[in-house]
């Protein structure tokens, strides 16, 4: 019984497991395709809606738009994913997707760090200018009090 199970189970050694997965991933299962398509289209719609509602600026939307577009492209053109998998020397297409998803997250975080640095600098400059203007304004008010407040 146990021996039979292990004969049928392709994961009993790593090489046959890889061959099994490769065979299975020659074409994209239809359920996977539907989920990926729904996810890609949903993501694009969400980004467009956020831009429309002015919750996301156009300049920061392009990276996300590109991600949605890439998901759609790879879903519809599975051979491209397999070709990239072969090109980078990965064994299964899913590792290619994980690798690029991971790289994308790193780059978008770096991009946000750059944006935050810029915002921090501008925030500091604004606060400094505000403080100096407030001092100037208070001194101006002291020198020239608003008319009607000085009676003598």
């Amino acid at each position: 019984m146990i021996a039979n199970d292990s004969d049928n189970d392709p994961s009993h050694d790593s090489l046959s497991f890889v061959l099994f997965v490769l065979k299975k991933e020659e074409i994209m299962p239809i359920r996977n395709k539907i989920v990926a398509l729904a996810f890609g289209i949903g993501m694009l719609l969400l980004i467009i809606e956020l831009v429309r509602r002015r919750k996301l600026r156009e300049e920061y939307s392009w990276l996300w738009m590109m991600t949605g577009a890439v998901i759609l492209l790879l879903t519809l053109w599975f051979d491209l994913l397999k070709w990239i998998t072969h090109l980078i020397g990965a064994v299964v297409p899913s590792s290619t997707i994980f690798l690029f998803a991971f790289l994308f997250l790193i780059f978008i975080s770096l991009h946000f760090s750059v944006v935050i640095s810029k915002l921090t600098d501008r925030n500091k400059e604004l606060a400094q200018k505000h403080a100096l203007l407030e001092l100037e304004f208070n001194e101006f008010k002291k020198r020239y009090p608003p008319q009607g407040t000085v009676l003598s």
Partner: protein
Amino acid sequence: MNKSGRILLIIPAYNEEKGIPGVIQGIRRYASGAEILVVDDGSTDQTRGVSLEAGVRVVSHPFNLGYGSALQTGYQYALIKGYETILQMDGDGQHDPSFIPDLLAVVQRDEADIAIGSRFLEPKGIGSGGHSYRAPFMRRAGMKLFGTITSLIIRQKITDPTSGYQAMNGKVLEWVSSDQFPCDYPDADVIIMLHRSGFRIREVPVRMFENRDKKSMHSGLKPVYYIFKMFLSIFVTLMRR
């Protein structure tokens, strides 16, 4: 109007309501002709109120921006108002105000563009044992390390690169008011940047006191960040032309 003789003393202060009246009093004793600007860095205590009561100008940040930014706000004020000599000292009473004339004299006699007060040089007339400052071992080690690095790079002995007790002239003022000034822990890297910009730097012996009340800005994980920041800043400074 000739403004060349005008002196501004900048005191960056964050929650220093206890220390600041004494500092202002000390400055008035040793630099009576100088004008004083307190930069209240978003304090949550009465720093602004006690400074105004003491009769000095106060510029208040809407929120806490940090020591370097507070200094830079003071520099920008001095630049706008046309002050020619600037002295900066901390608001916690750590810097002995009796050395203000020594620092100012170096800049006013044009012996240097910037005079940095060093707690590790022997002050005249105090003799051995005159140092009231005793930093913790790690802090001293950091000062020694960055002092040595700075000295090697600018080929001039720098004993106290972390000193915030400084006097400068209008030329340096323009530089430190610009966005080249690193607001994030400015010390050894600023000395290197100033040297590379062609300014003359001179260390002047001063006395500093230990501050028991204040939680040092070099506490917690901050020293680790400080060391990282300083190495990176010095490295990129050397890479810039």
